[in-house]
């Protein structure tokens, strides 16, 4: 059997802001098609690492590749092969559902015909056909999140980064969102996700937990629970973050 392909490779990633070390020698790999949970306390350095992996910031030092492209020399190729959705929504509030999809299709360089086809199949899949001309600001948060996720996948990226995608939504909508994540992972997309919901950590294939700029633990949820003698990921997280 072939070894699984690593779609994200990070070796000794360091990012400093003046004297402050936001990322302190991070080393990890993410496999193709994996749901990788990237957890940590507020201010632990998660967003910094994600910005670097998305080709938005340069690291201070270290070697990294995403989707097979080098993070220093092939940033544009990195960007074309990743999708990104943040807690603050990647959608424009004063554009309609359809306009947002068209806008992102255009940004990613899709042809007009392809954009239209994908827009319709996407709205159909999300049951948003009747909402096509509604402004984003007028649709419920749960719809926005599903739409933002689908838009992040519009250009068929190899990896999608989800930064707290489910913040603030009710338990039913959260689970519907995770069904979408599962489906994407099954179709071969790698999912790199941060969350503060510890039950969601258990839906990941593997989880890393950052504490003060370092990766304090990285394993499957099952193994982490065993290692920390905990019944839930919530307890694992609290043990790691409190013991700092």
């Amino acid at each position, binding site marked *: 059997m072939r070894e699984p392909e690593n779609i994200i490779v990070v070796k000794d990633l360091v990012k400093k802001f003046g004297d402050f070390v936001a990322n302190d020698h991070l080393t990890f790999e993410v496999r193709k098609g994996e749901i990788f949970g990237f957890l*940590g*306390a*507020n*201010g632990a350095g998660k967003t910094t690492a994600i910005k670097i992996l998305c080709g938005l910031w340069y690291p201070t030092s270290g070697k990294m590749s995403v989707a097979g492209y080098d993070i220093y020399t092939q940033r544009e190729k990195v960007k074309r092969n990743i999708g990104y959705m943040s*807690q603050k929504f990647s959608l424009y509030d004063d554009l309609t559902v359809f306009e947002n999809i068209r806008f992102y299709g255009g940004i990613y360089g899709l042809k007009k015909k392809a954009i239209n086809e994908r827009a319709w199949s996407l709205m159909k899949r999300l049951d948003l056909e009747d909402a096509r001309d509604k402004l984003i600001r007028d649709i*419920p*948060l*749960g719809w926005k999140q599903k739409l933002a996720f689908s838009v992040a996948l519009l250009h068929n990226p190899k990896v999608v980064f989800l930064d*707290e995608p489910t*913040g*603030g*939504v*009710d*338990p*039913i*909508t959260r*689970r519907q969102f*995770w*069904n979408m994540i*599962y*489906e994407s992972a*099954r179709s071969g997309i790698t999912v790199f996700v941060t969350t*503060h*919901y*510890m*039950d969601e950590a*258990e*839906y990941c294939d593997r989880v890393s937990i950052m504490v003060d700029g370092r990766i304090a633990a990285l394993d499957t*949820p*099952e193994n982490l629970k065993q290692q920390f003698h905990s019944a*839930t*990921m*919530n307890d694992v*997280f*609290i043990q790691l*973050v*409190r013991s700092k």
Partner: protein
Amino acid sequence: MDSPAVSVKNLTLRYGDTLALNDLSFDVPHGELLGFIGPDGAGKTTLFRVLTTLLVPTHGSAQVDGLDVVKDYRQIRNNIGYMPGRFSLYQDLSVEENLTFFATIFGTTIRENYDLIKDIYSQIEPFKNRKAGQLSGGMKQKLALSCALIHKPGILFLDEPTTGVDAVSRREFWEMLKRLQAGDITILVSTPYMDEAVLCDRVALIQNGRIMKITTPANVIASYPYSLFSVKADDIYGLLKALRDYPGIHRADAFGQTVHLSFNKDEFREAALLDYLKEKGIEPAGIREIKATIEDCFMDLMGKEEG
């Protein structure tokens, strides 16, 4: 003379054709910690805005500390603290400047009420010269709470104070709320986290502008009407999909590495379920009956309303 901290009667608020609040009535006794739970758009924020005198109701009335939210809004504003859902402090002022600003507006000083906020503020005081916009999520939330408390309010309104906040900071935040409550402050708080709902004296489930239930967390759990089971499998997603089509099932929901499935009382047949799953190529492990969590209860109630 001892009026409730909050008293709401037939409160209705209409935005155009939308009934954001639909005939709400409830009382909150002094010193209670009341939680509001419900999907986005249910009306939680609108309700908080009415109670904090920022929106005028279409019908009905609301009293805060015995004062009318429309007529006596000025007095009410002096007695309440409000932490809105969106971070509402001045991003380009420092931590200390923000706090001083709020203290001054209410005619007080940080020193005068330092005791009240010491617990919380001391944790961010080392960063008091940092701009609020540059704080992490957990620190922003502590600053916002300090600002909401600096004028010594009797009633606190906290609109999703812990959204986007990590598990450890959330726990610390709730420990602080409990201490404030012990100091005789009435707290109304909304949250999307079900583990926080359990920490409230009572919870109100709000959906489509109505309160569907308002009772203690223990009562919510006790009135769960189904038999609930937990099942484990390697492929949770496959298991969920198969279970959703299983005849007679009420709900199937992922809970970490297990799936919770509910049936009408006495309608569960383990052998039949195992046969069904086997046919689909799924071999689950460890089916066992469990007690409902508050999350099971709320998903059941929310699912019913949505039909």
